[in-house]
């Protein structure tokens, strides 16, 4: 297996992304959440795994993810505390790229052992690549770089063990499983894009609908609400409901 290195061509872009300390802190905290989520998936995979050897490895992998979550969180918080205005503490949003998504809502119970391992291998490979690339552009922040480099090294280890286990448990079909997993990742990426597009289109149409058509009904609703009293209301009786209407 080839050693993982950062993408040379994208380094200027990554340098730009990571230069802003606000974004850097936010991304580290996002990574902490993704790693914690990944750990849960892996613990779940270990709980449902029948093969004892693989179960132990998945368990160890999950513990690594917990450690990574801690590392990212600690560094993200330290960085955040240096900021004059750290920004809203609400949701962190998404905006993650392929290598940053961890196991991307993997439903471990529904996976066969081979597809699970292939999926883990590819996810870890993508993560190792991404983190190697980030480490390469973080020379101006040695503390963050140390965290990212350490995680990148671990992800390489995960990538190797998952490949070795795949070869052990499915010697004849490892390559096929890997290709199937690649297609699935591609399909998921397409679905994600399609959903984002559909969501945006729906959002635009519903907003137009809101401003063009809802106004008159809103006036009626507001007028009706003015007659409504505060406090107790008599509960609605449904004598002809027959039990169980939707309204």
């Amino acid at each position, binding site marked *: 297996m080839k050693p993982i290195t950062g993408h040379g061509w994208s380094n200027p872009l990554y340098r730009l992304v990571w230069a802003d300390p606000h974004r850097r802190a936010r991304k580290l*905290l996002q990574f902490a959440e993704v790693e914690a989520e990944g750990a849960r998936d892996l613990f779940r995979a270990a709980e449902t795994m029948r093969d004892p050897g693989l179960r132990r490895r998945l368990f160890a992998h999950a513990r690594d993810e917990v450690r990574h979550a801690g590392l990212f969180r600690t560094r993200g918080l330290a960085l955040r505390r240096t900021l004059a205005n750290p920004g809203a503490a609400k*949701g962190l949003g998404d905006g993650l790229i392929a290598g940053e998504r961890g196991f991307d809502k993997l439903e471990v119970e529904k996976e066969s052992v081979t597809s699970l391992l292939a999926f883990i291998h590819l996810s870890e490979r993508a993560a190792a690549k991404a983190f190697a690339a980030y480490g390469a552009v973080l020379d101006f922040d040695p503390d963050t770089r140390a965290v990212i480099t350490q995680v990148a090294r671990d992800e390489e280890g995960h990538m190797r063990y998952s490949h070795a286990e795949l070869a052990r448990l499915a010697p004849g079909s490892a390559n096929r499983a890997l290709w199937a997993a690649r297609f699935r990742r591609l399909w998921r990426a397409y679905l994600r894009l399609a959903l984002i597009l559909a969501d945006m289109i729906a959002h635009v149409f519903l907003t137009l609908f809101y401003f063009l058509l809802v106004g008159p009904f809103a006036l009626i609703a507001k007028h009706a609400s003015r007659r409504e009293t505060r406090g107790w*209301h008599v509960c609605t009786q449904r004598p002809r409901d027959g039990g169980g*209407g939707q309204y």
Partner: protein
Amino acid sequence: MKILGISAHYHDAAAALLVDGLPVAAVQEERLSRQKNDPAFPLRAIEWCLDHARIDPSELDAAIFYERPALKFDRVLMTLLRAFPHSWRVFPQAMKNMVGEKLWIRGIIHAHLDLPVSRIYFTDHHLAHAAAAFLTAPTENAAILTADGVGEWATLTVGRGSKTVGGASHIELLREVRFPHSLGLFYSAFTAYLGFRVNEGEYKVMGLAAYGTPRWAAEVRRILTRTPDGAFALNLDYFEYHRSVDSTYSRQFLDLFGPPRDRFEPIDLATPQGQHYADVAASAQAVLEEVIVDVASTLRKETGLSDLCMGGGVALNGVANARILQKAGFERLFVPSAPGDAGCALGAALYADRILFGQPHRDCPDHPFWGPAVEPEGLARLASEDGLPCDRLSGSQLIDQVVEAVAQGSVVGWMEGAAEFGPRALGHRSILADPGDAVMRDRLNRDIKFRETFRPFAPVVPAEHADRYFELPPGGRRLGRFMSGVFSVRPEWRERLRAVTHVDGTARVQILEQDMAPRLHALLTAYGRRQGIPILLNTSFNLAGDPIVTSVEEGYSTFRRGGIDLLVADNALLRRQQARQQQPMEEVA
């Protein structure tokens, strides 16, 4: 009749199965999907319930959903129209949410179960809460009070119920407070302000409140006002939940209470800022208690009934429950093990059986253990595959060994029989430890549960000894059955119960009757003989962010991940000490 109750799509989805008027299975989806507070349509829970009872979906006489989706849509739409044009950002989101899925429940149930639509029913959300509280309680006549965030329109209802074994059951909801005026949403706004997750962190606000003084109560009363008819109303200038996607409180709220807590930073109660947040929590808690005690007192006078059944998420507030019991004039207060939305699955099924179909009432078994059972063979298998010695012991041997271990400072993961239905671990999926050592509390918070240091742990005590250690008002024993009340620890015992006594001298005690969990009762009695106090610290068997464990595999995994010393699954026992010495643990990946 075979009736399936379903709750879903808001938070904490669940399914419950009733056969001939009695529950046979009930489980929250999160316990099977392993996603905390999983709101998804509870397919796994439904499948488990049906498998457990060996029933094919086609054999169901009815499936009933815990609320009326079209009426809920009516409320959502009306709220958006009333907030026009400020609701423009939330409108697309809400429409996609409702029209995309939540409105088509009949079709979803039909598609998944292949059940004729004529056998699919709906009930009012608060009727389901009322049924869950009243029809499971061992009382024939009771007043009913339900309060939560919001159902369809109602946020709080009061009423009364009557039933006799073999006879008819009646539930009459007399009146209601309607959205947007809601005690649940009021409390959730403070939950969000204090940096906790809404619908999940409300109990943290309750725990934090004990550290503060209610010096903001006057300000809180400006936003939660009383109406002349004895109900309440929220001053909506201080809230955003009715017109915003991502915020529950408004700018005026912040002008009143200051900047919200940064959720990434821990609360440091030694700092003025940390103390401020504790004071705000105490103020919100105090005003909530004032209102709900007053509503309950009026209900007591109006109905003249001595028993009160409470349901809805607000009934998880043990401090408020205890205040109601002490101040409102009721002799007994019944809160089911699952008073929140999950419990509505069981409530809806009971409502269908007793009220819709007019079946005669049968007393429900008075315990919360309706979930999947432990399989100790699974633990033995896992242990043997990992080369760990797993002992299979007789009942008395097991209890002796656990008592000795806890007395030596060990933390025990205790799994027994069927899992609890509801958010509390009531002795079948618990972590047990010595209640006397404050170091133990800190160790559990830091190394095992990985949670905030200010949060208290609960004790479990045999019912016959409860009065000796806790100041229980009349009816307190009943309220403590499902850990639904917070009571004072008697001052003379606080030093010896440091790990379970909160900063204000109280504890959310579980009062255990022998018939509910005989083995845990025997353990407590044996522990009392060994240590002089028959009380154990009892906290849910899970790590932060995870649902309570269900299967033995999840128990084993949690045992390995946290600093738990002993794992018990029925009669199987596994020790960490031996594990450390005899088995190289996980290989490095």
